[in-house]
């Protein structure tokens, strides 16, 4: 397979066959980060049960790296506990993809923040429910 410029095979693989693409109906948490004006936006929806991320889906407006990092982050986080999910950093994502060109590292950062935003949202909603 021809390599697209600077992307690793794993990035291309996730770009062509993204995992967990879509939106969860009635999610327990929604993380929306980025801005289409900047060229990068990610939406992550999660379903949480017994402190586990039971299900997670992503939607992304962005470049190949943005799509690959959001796909990878859902793969890394699915089935993990909330605490484990919060430990996933942009470095973890980039490494799992076999590395990213320096100029694309901000995409992995966005993916990390999208997950954190979804979990934040989940906790806020639960906090309100507990009140």
């Amino acid at each position: 397979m021809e390599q697209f410029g600077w992307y690793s095979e794993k990035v291309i693989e996730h770009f062509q066959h993204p995992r967990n693409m879509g939106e969860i109906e009635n999610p327990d948490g929604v993380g929306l980060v980025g801005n289409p004006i900047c060229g990068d936006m990610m939406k992550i929806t999660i379903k949480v049960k017994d402190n586990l991320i039971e299900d997670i889906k992503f939607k992304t407006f962005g470049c190949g790296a943005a799509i690959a990092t959001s796909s990878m982050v859902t793969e890394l986080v699915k089935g993990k506990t909330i605490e484990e999910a919060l430990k996933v950093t942009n470095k973890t994502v980039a490494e799992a993809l076999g590395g990213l060109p320096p100029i694309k590292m901000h995409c992995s950062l966005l993916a990390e923040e999208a997950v954190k935003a979804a979990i934040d949202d989940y906790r806020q909603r639960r906090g309100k429910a507990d009140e």
Partner: protein
Amino acid sequence: MKAIYMDHNATTPLDERVLEAMMPYLKEEFGNASSVHSLGIRARAAIEEARGKVAQALGCSPKEVVFTGCGTESDNLAIKGVAYANRDKGDHIITSRIEHHAVLHACQYLEKQGFRVTYLPVDGYGQVDPDDVRKAITDKTILITIMHANNEVGTVQPIAEIGKIAKERGVYFHTDAIQTVGKLPTKVDELGVDLLSLSAHKLYGPKGVGALYIRNGVKLHPLLHGGPHEWNRRAGTENVAGIVGLGKAIELAMEGLEEEAQYLTALRERLYEGLRSSIDHIRLNGHPTQRLPGTLSLCFEYIEGESIIMGLDLKGVAVSSGSACTSASLEPSHVLLAMGVPPAIAQGSVRFSLGRDNTEEQVDYVIEELPPIVARLREISMFSPEVPFSAMAGPRPRSH
């Protein structure tokens, strides 16, 4: 795997005949054109023959053609050269907001040196209004620089009209014709210009060589000081092989100009019609008719440009985009923004620039392969006609 190249505005493949013309000067005819022995004299003759071909293409005298290392250098020489040489007359330069960075950044540099620059706006098609030029001229204006056609969207500017205005007011007029020489007629008297930049690798010639037309009488400082090359306008041992290549390339381009323009226009329209009929929510960027024959710039709504390029590249098709992700600066196309394209939509731009090696078969292949790529990316995107860009704007992450 197919290899379909549709990025001719970025660069063009070297024509076989150009390579053939260059070969001797890369091998046994390696003389320095300034040497007074036979080897040098033959190199000199080759350069002057090439110069004659460029002069013929532009409709000027050979003495008005200066060879440079690239189009960017030609632009820099024209702008900085004229600015510094005419500082006693004035310090004001007029240009447009959609120029290539070679012009824009040279102007911005001059601003730091104390010059004043007016960056004229463009309309939705990317065209400068000659009236705006007229209104912007002051008695301190020493240079107007407006590109002949834009590299990103292909829109052709009203150069002849602006040329008349410049002449009336006695202001030097430069045009960056890097995208038009070899594609459209570029006779300097018809265009009414005093300076004109061109670059070999945009017309099936080699990289590393360009030229600047400088009308007889124009005062300009050189950028490169050293030997007396190019009548003391551009020091440096000449790139003989490159110059010979440029000469051959421009000669070939002039021979086939009309025919090729017709061919590429038809091919471009075929591509546009084909894509338009199978993909919705796409916008054409640039003037529908006053455009470079082979250039087709489109915005695909709800998705991002680099991902489209990647999808096409994986199918063997090479194109480019004006999205932030494809520029080293992470800024979206200044050209599209100046034309009033909303930033989020500008991020979804793709430029097809066809050339003489493209065929109907290749165009039909793209028409077939692009729709599923776009459809897939639209599935992945959170935006759609039902959820437009305005509906969602998340918080900016700390990295931005």
